[in-house]
Each structure stands twice: as C-alpha cells, then as structure tokens.
C-alpha cells in the first residue's frame, strides 16, 4: 500500500522514519517482545563477547578445586573437573546459538521449499505430506545416533538430526499459510490474468506466509536449544570438553544435590534463552497480526 503513494524522497524518508518510530513504540508497548528481545540481546552478546566476558579458560581443568560453590573467584562455582562454570555458561551460549541458527536456517529453507510445493501445487501435496508423516515418526535420537556413525558425533550431526526432526513443522506452517492464501480472491484473479506460478508465490504467498514462518522459526530455535539438552541426556550431544548448556545440565545432573550450581546456572541459561525466544515469537505473532494491533 505505501508503495502506491507517489511521493518525493523527503516525504518518503519522513514516512519511513515515522513508521520506524511507530514500530519502536509498539515494541515498547509489547511487553513480550521487550522482555524477549532483551533476553535474546543478552544471549547474543554473551556469545559475541564470550572471550571478553569469560573470566577463565572454559576448558581449564583444576581437579583440586572441583565442585566448589560460587565464590568471588568463580562466580558460579566450579564443576566436577574444577572448571569455571561461569566461563562455561558464557562460552556455552556460542554452541547454542550456532546450533540454533543452523537448525533454523536449514529447516526454514527446507520447510519453505516443501511447504510451498505442497500448499500451492495440489498434486504434490499428498506425496510430500505422506513422506513428512513418515519422517516425523523418526525420533531425532535415532537420526543423531545414525549420523554420528557417518560423521562422528558433533555439532553438524546434532544440527542435521534436529533439522530432520523439525523441518516438517515448518513445512506444515508454510503449507497451511499457502493453502489459506491460495483460496483468496486476489490469488485467483492473479491466476486468471496469467501470472506465472513463481510470480504468484513470490508476490502473494510468500509475504503472507512470512509472519507465521518467523514465529515458527523462533519456536524452532527454542526447541533446538532444548533438544540439545535432551540429546546430551542420552549421551549423543556435543562432545566434551566443548562447553554446551545441554551438556552441562545433563552431565551435571548427578551433582544436583551436592553441587546444584553445576546444573542450576546452565539450566537457567537454557530456560532464559528459550523463554526469550518464545516471548519474541509470541510478541511477533501479536505484532504482525493486524487484527490484534491497537
């Protein structure tokens, strides 16, 4: 709609500045997004500035000082090998972010292709969806263990396992959005005037599917962070000694009663990151749904 307004460059600038201000304002009004955004910002900066924020080498082992409670020297105590929990939590954010981003990127790409195909081309729908039904039956643990055989255990294995497990969700989201849009009059009219499929998808379907995709992406990110913990629980997670939140929580569960700090701090980190992502997802959903706007 705004593009249809012919305007001078200054007017357009003013307009976009106004829109930007409006957006910031609505960001502020949307508590979910504000809190979620803050949490994610903290999460991101932890990962970005890890080497400066960490106080020790996250891999430095010091068995004499194992399982020490939080102190001035070790803000979050030390773990079973005497490593600094705080530094490991800080560096662990990198692992979670890397995994999260890769999973989101790959599953969105796959989900878009399959979802648009299924939603727009009715003939492919049945085939694509049945294959996905089959895929969803495979727990990510099986995929993780199998892939570990081929590549060895590591981030890539985890990422691919999670992508296989999560992209069908994205496909379903995209497909549902596409089906909804496809039946609208303006798509039918576009078809009738002979627009190409590619044009219709790009011009009408994609923009209309965008908000559910972004929301779903935030949730998949959150699920990936949690899933890393679940897979670590079974011993197919990130290989030690690389710090990862899931690995810390699952290996530290033995020390729950003796040295709760070993599991509580990375656990809180997971909960906060996931909370932030979910809040952001919820907030975005509210924000992008025009009916819910002020």
């Amino acid at each position, binding site marked *: 709609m705004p593009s249809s307004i012919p305007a001078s460059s200054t007017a357009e600038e003013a307009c976009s500045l106004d829109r930007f201000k409006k957006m910031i304002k609505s960001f502020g009004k949307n508590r979910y997004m504000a809190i979620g955004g803050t949490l994610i910002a903290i999460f991101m900066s932890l990962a970005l500035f890890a080497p400066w924020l960490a106080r020790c080498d996250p891999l430095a*082992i010091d068995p004499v000082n194992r399982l020490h409670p939080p102190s001035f020297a070790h803000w979050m105590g030390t773990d079973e090998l005497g490593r600094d929990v705080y530094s490991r939590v800080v560096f662990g954010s990198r692992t979670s972010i890397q995994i999260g981003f890769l999973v989101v990127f790959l599953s969105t790409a796959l989900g878009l292709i399959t979802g648009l195909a299924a939603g727009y081309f009715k003939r492919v729908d049945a085939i694509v969806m049945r294959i996905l039904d089959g895929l969803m039956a495979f727990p990510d643990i099986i995929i993780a263990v199998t892939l570990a055989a081929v590549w060895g255990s590591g981030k890539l294995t985890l990422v691919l396992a999670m992508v296989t497990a999560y992209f069908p969700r994205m496909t379903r989201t995209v497909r549902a959005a596409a089906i909804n849009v496809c039946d609208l009059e303006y798509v039918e009219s576009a078809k009738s005037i002979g627009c190409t499929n590619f044009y219709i998808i790009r011009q009408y379907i994609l923009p209309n599917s965008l908000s559910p995709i972004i929301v779903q992406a935030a949730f998949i990110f959150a699920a990936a962070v949690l899933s890393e913990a679940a897979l670590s629980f079974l011993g197919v997670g990130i290989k*030690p000694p690389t710090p990862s939140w899931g690995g810390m929580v699952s290996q530290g569960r033995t020390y729950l009663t003796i040295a709760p700090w070993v599991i*509580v701090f990375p656990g809180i980190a997971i909960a906060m990151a996931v909370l932030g992502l979910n809040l952001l997802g919820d907030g975005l959903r509210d924000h992008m749904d025009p009916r819910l706007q002020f």
Partner: protein
Amino acid sequence: MSDKKSSVLWVCLIILLGCFSVMVCTSGKTLAQTSAPADSDKAKFGGTITVAWNLAPAHLDPNKSTGSEYGDIGYNIFEGLFEPDAGQVATPHLAESCKVENGGKTYLVTLRRGVKFHNGKEMIAEDVIASFNRWLTNNGGGKMVAPYFDSITQGAGPYEVVIRLKQLYAPFLNILSSNVANQKMFVMPKSVVEAAGDKPLDNPVGTGPYKLAGFIPDQHAKLVRFTEYTPVKKPSSFMAGERKAYADEIVYKFLPEEAVRIAGVQSGEFDFAVQVSTDQYKVLAGDPKAEPLIVPETMEHFFIFNGAQPPFNNIKARQALNHCLGIDAIAMATSGDSKFWVLDPSYMIKKSAWYTPDVGKGVYNTPNIEKARQLLTESGYAGTPVVILCSSADTVSVQAAQVAKAQAEAAGFKVDVQVYDRPTAVGIRSKKEGWNIFPSGFIASNPDPQVFGAWMGTNRWITNWDDADSRKMDAVFDRMMVEIDPSKRLDIVKEWNQEIYRTLPFIKLHNYSILHARAKRLQGVEAQPRIMFWNAWKEKVPAS
C-alpha cells in the same frame, strides 16, 4: 501499571528458583534413632529387600555373557562347587572336599549330600558333569580352561567327580570359583542344562538360597526364599560359608538413572542402590534414612593403547604419554576425595596373594613434561590427533580422558576425546583403526592374575598388540599358568608386572572405591566387590 506487568514474569522465575532452594536446603537435622542391636536371629527373618540396580540384563544365564549384570542376580540362584572367601581363596561350597592328585593334574571332588535344586531334585555327579561341560564351551572362563582340560567323569558313586587336566593349570580352582567376568562354574540340574543347550537359560534353576519368581527384562527380577536350601555349616566369608535367606523376597529393579536410584533410597522405597557417584557420599552420610557403603579398591582404571596404529605402535610415544599423566589429578577428577582412591602400581590389590607393590618404579605416575616432549619428538609423532574413545555411560573414563587431554596437550600431543553411546564405542574399538586410546575400568579384586591373560598379550581383546614384546608377554603368562609353587609363581607375577611397565601396552591409573547407597534399616550387606543380599536383613520398623 507497566511495572506490575513485567514483574509478574520475573516473579514466576523466582518461584522456579524457590523450588530449587526447597530441594537444596537439607532437612537432615533429624538424627536417626539408633535401634537396639539385633536381638535373636529369628527376628531378622521376613520382609522384602528392594534393590535399585544400574544395569539390566537380557537374561539370567551367567555363562552367556561376561557383563557383570548377568551374574549378580544369578549369585542368589546358583552356587559353585567352590566359592571365594574374603581372602579370594577358593573354598569348597557345593563340594564337600577336594583332593588334588597326580602332581596337580587330577582333582577328586566329593560333593555335599542332600543338596536340593529349586526343582526339588538332589544334586548328584551327573548334574555337575553336565554343568561343567556346558561351562567349558559357553563360558569365557571355561574357554580359557579348555586347552588344559582332559576329562570329567563320575568317581566312586554319585557324589564324586574326577576332573583330569592335560597339563598343569595353576589357577584352576580359582577360575571355578571366580567372582569376575562371570567365570564361575555354577552347578545346574542336568535336565535344565540339556534343555538350554548353547542358548541362554530360559528357566534358571540352581541350588542357591533364593529362587527366581519372576523376571521382566528392563523392569525387575523377583527372587523368593528357597525353603529347602541346605547351607554350608561354616561361618560366612564373602561368597563362601553359610548363606542365610533372611528376607522373604529380593526384588531387583533396573534403574539406569543414578539420581533416581538415590532418590528411592532417600524416600524409603528402596533398601539399596548400587553404584552411585562417590561425590554423593556427603549427601548419603547426612541423610536420616540412608547410609553410604564404600567398597574400597573395587576397580582399577586403565588407558589401553591401540597397538596397531601410529603413534602408539611406537613404544616411545607410549612412554611419552605415560610421562604426561599426573595420575593424582586424574584420580581426583574422577573419584573426588582421596579417601576413595589409591595410587598403586600393582595389578593385583593389597589383600591378594599376588600383590606386587615394588613394580613400576620410575614409570608409574611420573609426570615429566620435558621427558615427555623429548620422547615424543624421538617417536617421530606427526601431530595427527590422538583419539581417546569413551562410552558416554562410563563417566569415570570420560572425565579421565578430559584430564589426560589437558595433560597430554601440554607436552605436544594433539588429543581428540570422542564420546559415543556404548554400542557405538564398542563397535569402533573392535576395529583396528579409528581410535588410539580406550580408557576402561576393571574389577581390581581378582582371585588370580589369570584373568589379565584375556587382554594382555598378542592380539588379545582390543589391544592389537603384536610384536616381539607381546609374544614375550604370552610366554610369561604361559609359565604363570603352569607354575603351582606359590613363591616361584609370585616371581613370575612380578616379572609380568615389570614387563608391562617396560613395554607399556597400557597404562594403569588409580584404584578406586565404589559407593553404594544403603537404607539404614537394611543390615548385614557386606562391602565386597560383589554385592549380595543373603545374610542381609531388614530391621523391623516399630509401628508408629
């Protein structure tokens, strides 16, 4: 208004933290009431002992697997002709006596009379013969005896068995009674043995104080007292001597998760939980319902080299790694407080007759970065990462590997610790390439150094060790097996130990304790490398 809104979310998080503090703060103020010392023996009878076990066996036939979980439950059901006493000496059990003749090559075993199997039949020679023959071909221990074995026949009457060996085999009785790797020769009825053939037993029947009442793999095994049990009339000592079935029932529940095993003892649901981390000691000691049970020096830890692959096909590289390792640090990281571990170069523990404390001087636990660097250079190490392969369930190994990585990298090694689930790790290590070091724990309280023969020598187990040194090791073992004079044999044992420290096909680390959790009301469980529940009883809780 807006402050209120956002604060709600944070309040929720604080509630979450609150949950933790409830759980963390100890309620261990109440001291347990000390009950009066056990009154008459009669009062000990009755009740069910519920045990939280860590590993779940697929069946209950100890002959068909070397995994400890396949034997532990069977110890209640089956008995051997001989059983080890507290000093690891083979003592007649189902056997009344044993005469060794023909210079050590013939064993004349007299059986106890009137011993009943769980199926009601009396044990006689033909049962022993059938069991022995199945043991020879199916059991790992039996297979080690087989090359030395000649025949087993009935002697004079149904209560006498004659075993003849082709050549001397010093540890013969020790293997028959062994408590490691399920080597023991258990006596089962002939009919049961024949029905099973080479397949795992469907229907475990023995002479033991408890008989099987139900077994659901992955869930539980239920044992009930065998009322017609005929005990040995001698004081109990480890597995030998009198066994009394005080409890009516023993239920083994299979629970792989340590936290759940401990929680069950603390909450009063379980009477015993096996194998918990030694770090739990304080928690258990401070719990009003639970008590820690330490079994000292149960295990010894090893780093096993893959001798087929560079760099460790070169002795210099093995020596270099040895000089990297500060074993105290590894022990501390894996087993915590020093009361749970000892550094000891001997392969047999102190109470064994084959203890050799003087070996390994200048080799065992001699961290020396300079020397390590020099040896590493001499070995021509190309800088390819050394793979330490671990199974994720084996936390001791995973932690030891991480400490070793830090130590070895200081001297110029590149180390890659690879952790897999157990089947994957086992699969990888069974191949000649893809790994360089496999850390593993072994039961330390062995009856005889013979068990080491299964994995120390040319191409034994996973070592892929095949050179002049390994063949020399084979020769030492062969001599050890046929030497029956104790003092001469001890010399061979020392020679064997020295030979390992010279050639380093693996590096011995520390001996460490295993911690179990016992409910205070359960009495009489001995701190032994194998945990048994005969002779154990539950204190009756006065109705409150």
